[in-house]
């Protein structure tokens, strides 16, 4: 069995994939699956769709590895694939409608704190889904993928200045929505 070091960097793993070692892709998927899945989930708010989108982004990235430019970070590149696919998905599918009762927020395991956490999660989810898609994507990439302005600029193919102004406007809108729901 092949041992893959945690420290092995993305560029080395990509190079090995290009040399025909498909197993070298496993640590890349393991490294980024959580964040890609969460980004997709926060964009589409459906676990199955999020899984399919994340899975599709990885497979597409693998097929196009030859076009990856190592001058950029691997994750910025794969986020770009995911974001494009997610936007196409959102164009094809119905707009989001909040589900009541809430099926998607983790079930409570304790009394009051859990109830509050559930309410907060539901409020965040609904507030995010109420944002226009271009505002939602910057908030999701900033807060759920923790990308810098520069990395978001690469992932979304827009200037850094636009990233900042979109993010600012989106946060203002979120503040209004969350205040209106009394969620903060």
């Amino acid at each position: 069995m092949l041992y893959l070091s945690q420290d092995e960097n993305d560029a080395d793993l990509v190079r090995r994939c290009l040399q025909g070692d498909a197993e070298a892709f496993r640590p890349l998927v393991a490294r980024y699956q959580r964040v890609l899945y969460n980004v997709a989930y926060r964009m589409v708010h459906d676990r199955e769709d999020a899984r399919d989108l994340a899975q599709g982004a990885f497979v597409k990235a693998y097929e196009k590895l030859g076009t990856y430019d190592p001058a950029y970070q691997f994750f910025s590149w794969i986020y770009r694939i995911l974001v494009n696919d997610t936007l196409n998905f959102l164009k094809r599918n119905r707009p989001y409608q909040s589900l009541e009762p809430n099926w998607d927020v983790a079930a409570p395991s304790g009394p009051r704190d859990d109830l509050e956490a559930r309410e907060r999660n539901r409020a965040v989810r609904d507030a995010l889904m109420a944002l226009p898609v271009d505002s939602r994507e910057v908030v999701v990439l900033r807060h759920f993928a923790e990308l810098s302005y520069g990395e978001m600029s690469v992932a979304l193919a827009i200037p850094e200045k636009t990233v900042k102004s979109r993010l600012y406007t989106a946060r203002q809108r979120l503040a209004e929505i969350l205040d209106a729901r009394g969620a903060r």
Partner: protein
Amino acid sequence: MSRPGHDELIQGEIDGVNAASDSARLRVLLASRPDLDGRFRSLARVSETLGGAERLEPPPELLDGVMWAVRGCRPKAQARPGWQEALRALLTPAPLAACACTLLIGVVLGGLLPSDTGLFSRKERAALSGTALSPGRLDAASTLDRRSIALEGITGEAVTRIEGGLLVLDLELEATRRVDVNLDLDGTGLSPRSFSQDGPPGGDVVMAVGQVRFSHLAGRRRYNVSFSLGDPAGRALRLRLGVGEALDLSIGRERPR
């Protein structure tokens, strides 16, 4: 370098990217401007709320599904060069010489071949000119299985392949009567995601856990059904047409029997 505006200072502070001098400037500003202070606090609370929102763990089948799909394909080794690079590469001596040789061989062979093309069948001409590809070579690299269907009154073809991390079944049927089509998913680890058909809608379509059912009306139609990849599969995708014998279609990861 221009000094950032108020909004940029506030956002930079929230995101932790302000230089020490900008943070100090913002503190002074917030102390003297209650409106800005209110805005800063409001946006900081949004950031905090988002930070406290739950992060989901990806389902275990995500990694397995990706690895299963990538084993069936090979990444392109390098990016396609732009037209300028391609032209430059062509004009180097070796490709130029190769082009000249090919042209010469073509001229010589053209002279040697009989001028009456009627002597050869179309297939033979294609083979001579090197344009005949076997069906196997024409198959997409992602194809997992391809089966011809020839039952009483029913003909067609079923193809399983991988596309965008999903398993896709392309089914073409031509029948002289209505046929019930049943896809048995039990033990395959697959769950149905989408269904489409060409032409006018046929009979009812049922997509449920463990199976997909629909009716093929008399005539010819193409169907496209996609599936998510779930738990590791134990067996092939089973296609049954009417009451006929089932056809097992490989999904590329069945356990050997």
